[in-house]
């Protein structure tokens, strides 16, 4: 059976799209609702995944508790990032966020004793020993499989998307509240919000922290899905994938995120089937780079013809 018709392949694409949904939802809260240019979002994913893995392997902690610690630590990371930087102008804030994520990645690469270094989590228990953090996850997934009478991929698909869609609904509900209204007002004009008594800084910090929690949850699923990761998995490119998803789907709405993630995932995976001329002139590694070119072209096309994204509101784009 060819890959394009393989169920296993597409369920993998679906799982990754679900993880991206959670990840990009954080960017949607931070930028789409609160107007924060966070280019270091991948850091929260890394904090969530690494905290969980380290606590399980080194401290023998219950995996669920370790996962909770991962989310909490990512939120704390959001506070620490936000406190000194959120008063900066938007562009300077963007620069410091990308520095934040790169600093963490370099620390993770070099602090082998804490993180396993560039070898990744397999090295967490020390050289010569193979560390695993996901035994508990495997048995959980196994019980989902037997409970629902489905295969492993499908069980993962169901779990990831259940969590992702719950998060989408939660964000959607939050944005309909007066709290969400304040966030949007800050995105529109923070001086106006301040003039009406809103503590702009506190709300930005909250948006950053909520986004950080979502990023960390995505990081946990990433870790569970791949059973192994290294610092290089959390390179800035991943942050920009989240941005692409949010732009593809449309800014300022929660439910556009899963749509953007699926479209992104399909384009990303789909380019590997470009095995007809002229693409067949390229070898498979060269073809792998095509996907970024294709996504770049799609975004350029969107900016030209549908700047609001696939489901964004055109009217909101033209108002001044």
């Amino acid at each position: 059976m060819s890959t394009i018709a393989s169920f296993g392949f597409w369920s993998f694409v679906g799982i990754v799209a679900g993880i991206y949904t959670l990840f990009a939802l954080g960017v949607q809260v931070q930028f789409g609702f609160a107007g924060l240019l966070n280019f270091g979002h991948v850091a929260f994913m890394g904090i969530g995944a690494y905290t969980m893995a380290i606590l399980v392997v080194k401290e023998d902690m219950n995996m669920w508790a370790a996962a909770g610690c991962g989310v909490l630590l990512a939120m704390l990371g959001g506070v620490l990032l936000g406190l000194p930087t959120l008063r900066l102008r938007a562009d300077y804030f963007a620069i410091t966020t990308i520095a934040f994520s790169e600093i963490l990645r370099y620390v993770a690469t070099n602090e082998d004793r804490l993180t396993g270094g560039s070898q990744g989590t397999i090295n967490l228990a020390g050289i010569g020993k193979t560390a695993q953090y996901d035994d508990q996850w495997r048995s959980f997934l196994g019980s989902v499989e037997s409970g629902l009478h489905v295969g492993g991929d499908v069980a993962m698909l169901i779990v990831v998307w259940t969590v992702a869609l719950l998060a989408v609904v939660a964000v959607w509900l939050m944005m309909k509240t007066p709290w969400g209204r304040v966030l949007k007002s800050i995105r529109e004009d923070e001086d106006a919000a301040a003039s009406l008594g809103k503590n702009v800084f506190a709300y930005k910090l909250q948006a950053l922290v909520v986004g950080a929690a979502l990023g960390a949850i995505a990081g946990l699923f990433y870790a569970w899905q791949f059973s192994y990761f290294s610092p290089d998995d959390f390179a800035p490119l991943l942050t920009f994938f989240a941005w692409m998803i949010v732009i593809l789907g449309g800014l300022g709405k929660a439910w556009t995120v899963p749509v953007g993630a699926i479209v992104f995932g399909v384009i990303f995976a789909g380019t590997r089937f470009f095995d007809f001329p002229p693409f067949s002139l390229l070898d498979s590694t060269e073809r792998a780079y095509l996907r970024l070119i294709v996504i770049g072209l799609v975004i350029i096309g969107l900016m030209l013809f549908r700047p609001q994204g696939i489901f964004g509101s055109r009217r909101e784009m033209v108002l001044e």
Partner: protein
Amino acid sequence: MSTPILAVREVVRTFGGLRAVDGASFDVEQGSITALIGPNGAGKSTLFNVVSGFLSAEGGSVQFEGRRIDRAPSHRIARRGLVRTFQVPRTLTRLSVLDNVLLAASGHPGERLSGLLLRPARARAYERKTRHRAHELLELVRLDKHAQDYAGVLSGGQRKLLDFARVLMTEPRLVLLDEPMAGVNPVLGRQLLEHVLQLRAEGGMTFLFVEHDLAVVMEASDRVIVMNEGRVIASGTPTDVRSDERVVDAYLGVVPPT
């Protein structure tokens, strides 16, 4: 005389070498409608920004209801009951007209995550009450028909009225209006003026406003403060000020004799 609601003392604010506000002092009396006038570049807008916390004062002090506010951030000043409008209305264009007004409600429990999660019923009840009040205010400024529209579709004059409704939603005690009549058609401007007079009469609200239309200033205000080159050069009743030589000089651009 009671203590002034706003006391500005020797406030200084420079931009590089320019002393935009250069030792300005004045009082605003409780329940008054006070006009702040002066030629372009006199420092009126800078002073507004300092009083409302959008710019820090480099010298001097500002007291609101007897408490120093010159070190307080803008949102805290607004919460204490000193709320401003902007010369160019800061309309939140991609929010509905109604949301613009709802946003201004003060002490809304639904604006805090803790309030939302722990006491959702209370947040909902507050939102209902706020909605009711917002519709009243939109009726007051005749924007009720636009309640559900994006605020971005409003004209410049309508935006001024929306700003005004928004300020009233905060239940302020002192309102700073920055050129409330500029760009508003005369009929709407007249309505706005009547609202100001009515609010003062009924609610005891105090207004301090910058305005270039001297006819409006003379008609509406009880006191006039005149600024020139960053300083207050005269203050008094509209009649006093009109006949003041320094004021005439400032407006005619003649260098006052020293």
